């Protein structure tokens, strides 16, 4: 018998199941993985260094581009950190809007995750279904900020503007006209809130549809049950947060435990797993979508009843409106200073974290009385999760690597920063 040696294979960085630009060096013993060494940084853009060279507000847009499938949650973390340093708080209506959009973002993220995770493991249909629903939520993003993804909607002191009173409608085209056009615009007759309400009524049956496709699916279970098991002790050691930690059975959710925005006024549950395998994390995320849907519903109800300001009335941080800027000298000066120099932030350091769809997204800011952050560090949940790659795939088969990458829900925008 000839001598058998381990061999090394290169997975990625351009591999459809690598979820971006992950390069994995896998040391294989036959079909079994002996050691996995993820190489990251192929998407490193130096976001933190760039932020140090810009006034505080200029970096909000960079936050969208970190975890580019949960945009507004990233903004929330950054804005919250600045608010902490400035000792300001957004008006209550802005808090509710943030809560609502954080949850919309969570559904956006989880839909993306279930779509691509399913696709990796051979469930093509789900990908198409998930993207169909994502489209509605992207329309909400667009209605409120003008951009489908990179919204830059949250600002220190509130949100950029109030929710619009009308939804943009589909125009008549060769394919959509007459009855079909009416059908396509049927949700869009009222305001954005009406549109979101329609969505929340529509979405639960779609989740049920996904469950029918996957939860008891034999192939799905074969690919996820008992794959990538992490014990609660190890999950803590490995710095897991969010669904990765809850999948291992630890009940920890910043929305409940270190509450922020309007989450303390919301009624929702935290799903947790039992076995800590890919399948449990799948169940946790599916239930999170149901809970998010219910939170959005509660926010819509409140927002419909309670109009009010969405931005702090403080010209040192928030720009005056156009009318004031054109007609009032003081406002004009404030406007000019805000957009040329920005505001200065008192010396100090603060860490603010939000429960992003992937886990704890935190921003650590060091300010030195100037208009730019002295140091900004983004604590990306995916970074800690991916660092556990070797431990999670060691001893399993090559095919399980794909399942583990999927269950980690990694996005390289935030890992490489």
């Amino acid at each position, binding site marked *: 018998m000839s001598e058998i040696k381990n061999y090394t294979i290169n997975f990625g960085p351009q591999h459809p199941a690598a979820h971006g630009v992950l390069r994995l060096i896998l040391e294989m013993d036959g079909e079994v993985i002996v050691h996995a060494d993820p190489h990251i940084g192929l998407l490193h853009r130096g976001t933190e260094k760039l932020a140090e060279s*810009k006034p505080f507000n200029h970096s909000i847009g960079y936050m969208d581009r970190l975890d580019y499938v949960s945009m507004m949650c990233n903004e929330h973390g950054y804005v919250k950190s600045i608010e902490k340093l400035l000792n300001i708080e957004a008006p209550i209506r802005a808090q509710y809007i943030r809560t609502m959009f954080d949850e919309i973002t969570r559904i956006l993220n989880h839909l993306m995750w279930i779509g691509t995770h399913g696709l990796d493991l051979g469930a093509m249909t789900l990908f198409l279904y998930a993207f169909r629903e994502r489209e509605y939520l992207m329309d909400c993003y667009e209605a409120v900020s003008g951009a489908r993804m990179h919204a830059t909607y949250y600002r220190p002191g509130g949100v950029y503007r109030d929710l619009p009173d009308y939804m943009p409608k589909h125009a008549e085209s060769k394919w959509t006209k007459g009855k079909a056009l009416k059908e396509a615009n049927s949700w869009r007759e009222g305001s954005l809130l009406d549109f979101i309400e329609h969505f929340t009524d529509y979405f639960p049956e779609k989740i049920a549809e996904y469950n029918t496709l996957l939860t008891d699916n034999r192939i799905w279970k074969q690919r996820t049950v008992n794959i990538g098991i992490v014990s609660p002790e190890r999950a803590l050691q490995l710095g897991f947060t969010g669904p990765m930690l809850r999948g291992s059975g630890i009940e920890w959710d910043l929305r409940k435990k270190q509450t922020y925005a309007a989450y303390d006024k919301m009624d929702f549950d935290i799903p947790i797993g039992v076995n800590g395998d890919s399948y449990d994390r799948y169940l946790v995320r599916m239930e999170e979508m149901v809970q998010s849907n219910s939170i959005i519903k509660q926010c819509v109800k409140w927002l419909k009843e309670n109009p009010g300001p969405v931005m702090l009335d403080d010209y040192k941080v928030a720009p005056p409106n156009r009318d004031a800027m054109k007609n009032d000298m003081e406002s004009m000066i404030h406007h000019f200073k805000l957009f040329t120099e920005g505001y200065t932030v008192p010396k100090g350091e603060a860490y603010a974290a939000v429960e992003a769809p992937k886990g704890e997204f935190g921003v650590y800011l060091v300010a030195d009385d100037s208009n730019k952050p002295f140091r900004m560090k983004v604590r990306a949940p995916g970074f800690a999760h991916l660092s556990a790659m070797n431990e999670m795939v060691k001893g399993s088969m090559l095919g399980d690597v794909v399942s583990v990458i999927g269950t980690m829900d990694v996005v390289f925008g935030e890992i490489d920063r």
Partner: protein
Amino acid sequence: MNDKKMSLEKKLKSQFGDLISNIVNQYGEITCEVTPENWQQICQQLRDDDQFSFEQLIDLCGIDYLTFGEAEWDTDGVSSTGFSRGISNKGPGRFSWEERETELIDKRFAVVVHLLSIKHNMRIRLKCFAPDTGVLAVPSLIKIWSVADWFEREAFDLFGIIFVGHPDLRRILTDYGFIGHPFRKDFPLIGNVEVRYDEEKGRVVYEPVSIEPRVTIPKTIRKDARYAENQEQLEGDS
């Protein structure tokens, strides 16, 4: 919440005494400084001692304190020609690789750790200044929290801080064969090399950057009414 924080401050003082210095309670967050000699021992105790039980290392990062508190634009004085133009200073956006100067200041590099206790639902921030002379080294926390592995590799990559005891201290975020530590304040924002495909050589080549460094908005320091308020609140907190 605040009560718990206060008691954490007291507990730290009674448990560690002089081993922990500069305990600051700001914005409801506790920050304290630890020397590299006591770094591992204190972290170990913070994890294992029941009154702290910080099971999770949430974040670890480096900081370079060069140019801390230095403005690029003098806004206090004004002459007959107006305010200063704010075009000359040594911020990272203003110089290229060749004209950089390496400077030594006291307490320049620090490692900052954020810990989270799930049991007691509290956070703490620890800071460890690397020695100013000799090797820029801080003990590794990898034995205490496994997640420190990549965080320490990142801090090494970006700041050049060496973590003693780390088994595999490689670069992580920058390119293969990268030179320098890009998040240091004396590393230019535009970097030092640019990459292009050379038609004649038939391969990708690295060349010195051709971009001129430029800053559109200078760093400005201003103190307004909010500082006084913050200061009052800080004093009220402690």
